[in-house]
């Protein structure tokens, strides 16, 4: 059986060979009619580049757009997104708005919610304000057009504000229309296709650009985002999705032990995929299998130790399971892939163990979306034990402490700032490590025995440097 990669994505060309190397046979289709000709039981991965308005990503395009305008004209950036939307857009807007304000233009940024209170954004907002960008936070907005100009009426909770602009830049990422055509053809509903304001329920509001789910097991939507991603950063999560499709019983997802659950809602609050919600009897939390992104954030934060990773039930109720694959070649391929990772780990574990080198002194937890694909290249010659994790958020204090019993130092290598596929697993990891360092120091241990680094998929040298520094931090 083959896997259909459907959609128009600039990653398609690079993805297919990468997936082929991992043992997955794929067919690329770009149109609905092509899709309809293929056997129905083939699993489908919908790939979707979300299209960002170029005026917020490209300085030159933005400069060109304001070229014919009067200097007194107001230029409006409309950021109609809720607090769960991608921080990437906010970042782009702040950058371009500051740039245009620096060209002595009147710039207003209208926003429904902002990350201004987030320490990482605080400085960017301050810089933009200094350059003269005006920020207006609103509760509701009305747009109309009037003589070639956009008329904006907004309500900020206290007062009504009206403005007119020749250039209203919509700051949003929207999936291209083909996606909807595919979704219709496959009879799936896209889940939260637009960041909606207001409610924070499971079905509304908590939606992230990086992860899409169709709530149907054999159809998966992967947003490839508008970030200039290296294709290698998509492959691990795609392989995970494919494994989910071919071997539903093998996928690691969160499982809540209802007897231990303290019903504290911590997991509900922190889950980036809205996968945790009260169970039917309202007595404990329950992880929704199809929503779970397998990041492990809930496992590491659960105060009652009630959540663990568990392999999904082989007895799936899904339509895909009914169309059981007859040959096991794909399953073997997955197994081979897993084995390859295992061997890779074993090699790293022993250094050049066969030649009798000493046991590693450093343990590195590598996020499989960034550091792990890099680790073989970046850490060659470094005697370290590598452990891949689904997300930085999976790395718990206990895991680090456990590792410290065996190794001199521990390094957590996680994704760079806004790149986390699970919203903030990377930041959670760094913050946990900082807290642990502090506690170790208070107990009189060398806090440098643990460290963390945030890296992108191309930053092999930074990972290497961090590993070397971590090795130096050791104290026995």
């Amino acid at each position, binding site marked *: 059986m083959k896997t259909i990669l459907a959609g128009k994505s600039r990653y398609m060309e690079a993805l297919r060979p990468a997936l082929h190397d991992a043992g997955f046979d794929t067919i690329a289709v770009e149109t609905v009619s092509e899709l309809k000709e293929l056997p129905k039981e083939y699993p489908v991965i919908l790939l979707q580049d979300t299209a960002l308005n170029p005026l917020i990503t490209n300085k030159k395009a933005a400069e060109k757009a304001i070229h014919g305008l009067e200097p007194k004209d107001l230029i409006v950036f409309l950021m109609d997104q809720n607090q769960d939307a991608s921080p990437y857009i906010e970042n782009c807007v702040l950058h371009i708005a500051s740039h245009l304000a620096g060209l002595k233009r009147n710039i207003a940024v209208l926003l429904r919610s902002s990350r201004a209170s987030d320490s990482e954004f605080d400085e960017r907002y301050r810089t933009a304000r200094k350059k003269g960008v005006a920020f207006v936070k609103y509760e509701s907005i009305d747009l109309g057009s009037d003589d070639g100009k956009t008329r904006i009426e907004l309500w900020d909770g206290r007062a009504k504000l009206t403005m007119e602009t020749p250039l209203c830049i919509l700051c949003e990422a929207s999936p291209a229309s083909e996606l909807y055509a595919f979704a219709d053809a496959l009879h799936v509903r896209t889940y939260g296709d637009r960041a909606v304001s207001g409610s924070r329920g499971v079905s509304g509001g908590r939606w992230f650009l990086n992860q899409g789910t169709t709530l149907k097991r054999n159809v998966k939507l992967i947003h490839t985002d508008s970030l200039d991603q290296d294709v290698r950063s998509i492959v691990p999560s795609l392989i995970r999705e494919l494994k989910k499709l071919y071997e539903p019983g093998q996928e690691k997802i969160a499982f809540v032990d209802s007897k231990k659950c303290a019903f504290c809602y911590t997991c509900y609050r922190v889950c980036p995929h809205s996968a945790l919600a009260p169970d039917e009897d309202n007595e404990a939390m329950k992880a929704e299998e199809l929503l779970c992104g397998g990041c492990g954030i809930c496992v590491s934060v659960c105060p009652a130790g009630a959540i663990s990773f568990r392999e999904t039930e082989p007895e799936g109720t899904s339509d895909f399971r009914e169309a059981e694959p007859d040959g096991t070649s794909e399953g073997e391929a997955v197994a081979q892939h897993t084995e390859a990772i295992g061997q890779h780990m074993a090699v790293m574990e022993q250094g050049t163990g066969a030649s009798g080198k000493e046991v590693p002194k450093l343990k590195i937890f590598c996020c499989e979306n960034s550091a792990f694909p890099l680790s073989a290249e970046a850490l060659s010659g470094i005697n370290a034990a590598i452990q891949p994790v689904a997300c930085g958020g999976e790395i718990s204090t*206990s895991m680090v402490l456990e590792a410290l019993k065996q190794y001199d130092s521990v390094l957590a290598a996680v994704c760079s700032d806004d790149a986390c596929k699970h919203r903030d697993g990377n930041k959670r990891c760094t913050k946990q490590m900082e807290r642990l360092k502090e506690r170790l120091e208070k107990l009189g241990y060398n806090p440098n025995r643990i460290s963390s680094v945030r890296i992108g998929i191309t930053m092999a040298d930074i990972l290497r440097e961090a590993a070397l520094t971590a090795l130096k931090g050791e104290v026995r």
Partner: protein
Amino acid sequence: MIIASQKPIEEIRETIKPYKKVLIAACGTCVTVCLAGGEKEAKELADLLSLSGDQEFRVVTPKRQCDSEFLEEFDKDVSWADAGLSLACGVGVQYLAERCTGKPIIPGLNTAFMGTNRDAGYWTEMCQGCGNCVLEKTGGVCPVARCSKSHFNGPCGGSSKGKCEVNDSIDCAWQLIYDRLKSLNQMERLFETIPPRDWSTSRDGGPRKIRRPDVAIEEVTE
């Protein structure tokens, strides 16, 4: 819910120093929910403290340390230990201490207040257990717990822009009361003077007891 936070780790280490075997008792209710003394915190603490290799630790997690029915497991393990480190609120610590006469029970948390979880990792004080609730008069905002001076009849002169003079991160309770009564259309309540009150229902009357004779098995005369 009772909100607590873990004591500084160096302080905990100092207090348990004399003991070779320490039983860490987590508590599965309030302090689990406020992330201070649940099973996860207890295990982390055990891991951290055992790094030195001088002491041995075991962890038990009764559902509640404040009810004897949940403490059987603790009773068994405590016979192994030289001391117990309770990660419950002050109630749990004392209750364990009462049960094991021969062993010291050491607190691992600072019990802070009765409050609510505002957001992930954020708790605020809402009630002081004064024993005589006046929330119906104040729009559901407690002047005892949420006004820094526990004022009953309006704000002090230190209220500025809705914030308290003690610390501008504290909302002025009387601003909240005013806003709330306004939204309830009950502004006339602000003209009611609340007379000086009898604090004997609070701590001033000494440790408090509540009895329900209808539930009690034996008749109690006191």
